């Protein structure tokens, strides 16, 4: 077992997958010699050379478009977008091309590109280095959206993504890139794309979350335990496809649901969770479905700690549904 941060786990997955399969290539801005601005691609350039670890010009549209062409040819590209905030220049390639390649060719052509990108707030990055754009991609048929919350999952999910046949938007919670270490097996393993993970079992309220919000929810749950409320925490891990069964089972058990996410509340991913529950499990509900989310504003710089969901805010939501 190795004690790794989430960032190291990502790096380790890349090293292993590039070793396993010659077709895996990495491309992006500063991913080569510099090892990525977060160092997620550290050492790859030295080990696999410039042909498989490509420093590209400054164009996200170019990075993703080129990756699609590579994937069509038969490579397995894992492009990095330096910050999720800079994925928008590539939005057309992602939404119009990557997502639709299989569909529009009747399954003949596929472009199973795995786009890695750090997302989210909590690093004092202001609105151009803190956004959480997952909902855009979950609303785009043809894409899978994966967000790990810990080193073990990060490595296993990234490996599963690279070995998969479909495109993946792999979003890495940069706030917790180096926040804690976890024992990660030396032996090869994958965490399958799809299933959610109940990280804390509980009976009173279900909290659905992902990425860096899992830690926030866990801290709120500890506080709630002091009040005698037993919160269940479901780490979604894969946002599309969604593990609907686990979600519904949890709500049926607890009767109360809260969704926590950093993105602006309106039309955020939490709306989908709430809507799914309201459609399929409404009779089990003993309280409103609450969303603890980012504000309907761009992401601020100085006051980001007010903007972002924090344990106290999640705890308030628990109080509210328990008191309902």
């Amino acid at each position: 077992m190795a004690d790794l941060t989430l960032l190291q786990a990502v790096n380790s997955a890349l090293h292993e997958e590039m070793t396993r399969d010659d077709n895996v290539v990495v491309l992006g801005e500063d991913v080569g010699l510099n090892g990525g601005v977060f160092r997620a691609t550290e050492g790859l350039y030295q080990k696999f050379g410039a042909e498989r670890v490509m420093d590209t010009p400054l164009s996200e549209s170019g990075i993703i478009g080129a990756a699609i062409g590579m994937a069509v040819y038969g490579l397995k590209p894992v492009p990095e977008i330096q910050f999720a905030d800079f994925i928008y220049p590539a939005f057309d390639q992602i939404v119009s091309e990557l997502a639709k390649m299989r569909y529009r060719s009747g399954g003949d052509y596929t472009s199973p590109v795995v786009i890695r990108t750090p997302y989210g707030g909590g690093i004092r990055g202001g609105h151009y280095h803190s956004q959480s754009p997952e909902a855009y991609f979950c609303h785009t048929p043809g894409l899978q959206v994966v967000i790990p919350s810990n080193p073990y999952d990060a490595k296993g999910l990234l490996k599963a993504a690279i070995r998969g046949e479909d495109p993946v938007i792999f979003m890495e919670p940069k706030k917790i890139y180096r926040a804690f270490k976890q024992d990660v097996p030396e032996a090869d393993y994958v965490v399958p794309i799809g299933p959610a993970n109940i990280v804390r079992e509980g009976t009173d309220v279900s909290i659905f979350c992902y990425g860096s919000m899992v830690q926030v929810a866990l801290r709120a749950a500890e506080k709630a335990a002091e009040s005698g409320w037993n919160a269940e925490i479901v780490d979604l891990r894969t946002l599309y496809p969604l593990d609907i069964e686990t979600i519904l089972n949890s709500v049926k058990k607890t009767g109360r649901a809260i969704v926590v996410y950093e993105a602006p509340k309106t039309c955020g991913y939490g709306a989908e969770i709430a809507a799914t529950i309201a459609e399929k499990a409404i009779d089990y509900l003993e309280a409103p479905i609450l969303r603890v989310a980012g504000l309907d504003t761009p992401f601020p710089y100085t006051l980001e700690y007010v903007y972002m969901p924090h344990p106290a805010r999640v705890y308030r939501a628990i109080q509210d549904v328990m008191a309902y």
Partner: protein
Amino acid sequence: MSMIQEVPTMTTKEKPQRAIPEGLTPFDLKQMYEAMIMTREYDERCFKLQRQGRIGFYAGSFGEEACQIGTAFALEQKDWIFSSYRQPGVAMHRGVPLQTMVNNLFGNAEDIVQGKQMPVHYTHKAHHFLSISSVIGTQVIQAVGCAMAAKVKKDDAVAITYFGDGGTSSNDFHSGMNFAAAMKAPCIFALVNNQYAISIPVQKQTGVEVLADKAKAYGMPGFQVDGNDILAVYKATREAILRARRGEGPTLLELKTYRAGPHSSSDDPSRYRSKEETEYWLKRDPIALFREYLTEMELWTEAWETEIRENAQARLSEAIKIAESLPQPAWETLFDDVYSYVPQALADQKEDILAHESGLELTNEGEFPL
């Protein structure tokens, strides 16, 4: 000043008996002519189908046959094609079966993509012909990525991408040209300058006079070629491909031609250009020009022309008859090919619709206006 490809153009006044370009035989020349005729016949028939309401949409390539067939003949089967919607001749010459193409127009049950794409959006994996996107310019950088992949794999294949004068304004013309030149990707950029992007003339599209000069921004060779002269097109493409195969990187070819027809079945060019202009260009019809050359070379006869035209028409009639007789795709197909599997949310939708709506008489409403 742009480097003008030094190819004897067939538009010059004196038409000397010329040598057959390297790489071609007299047999090839006749095949090229036949492919141009087939492309033209396809075009005419499809427009008619659209006007008769038998297919929903069509975008033709009338006047651009030399650009298509001239480039296509320079390619080998191992090469990759990232085209726009205006190169049916490339697909046909490449070997995409006519029936496959016509099935796309009808979006029927035998269509490769089972009606998932509009007409004129072909795809064919066996021939390295990439599924066409409507979105202008996106294929350019993809072709570059494909070429980069061939380089990584040390394969000998090159990629060619077709796009229009309007396409040069797109984001991914820029990213594609830049990546290709910076990374020496074996990629050919076939810029079909037909002088219009729907109603926008090329003079409004860009401030540069010779589109081939756009290569200069990227440190890439760029050539302007008479796009109505099939042999000039062939020769320029062949040289670019050889250069790419030698590892010398990409080339931009501006194939200067004219969109002699409307933008598509929804367009009315009389709103934005004069009859005189169109007539001027019709006199430079690439098929007529090539016919003159073949006649000079004693490779063309009236009887042969009739034969290949009738043959083309017969093949078309047959393919259309079959395509039209085929049913629509089954509703089940709607849910395929989004992913390699069917996600739960989609499976639920499938079950719901198939269980409750299969009997319903639903129909299309509305028509495509562009």
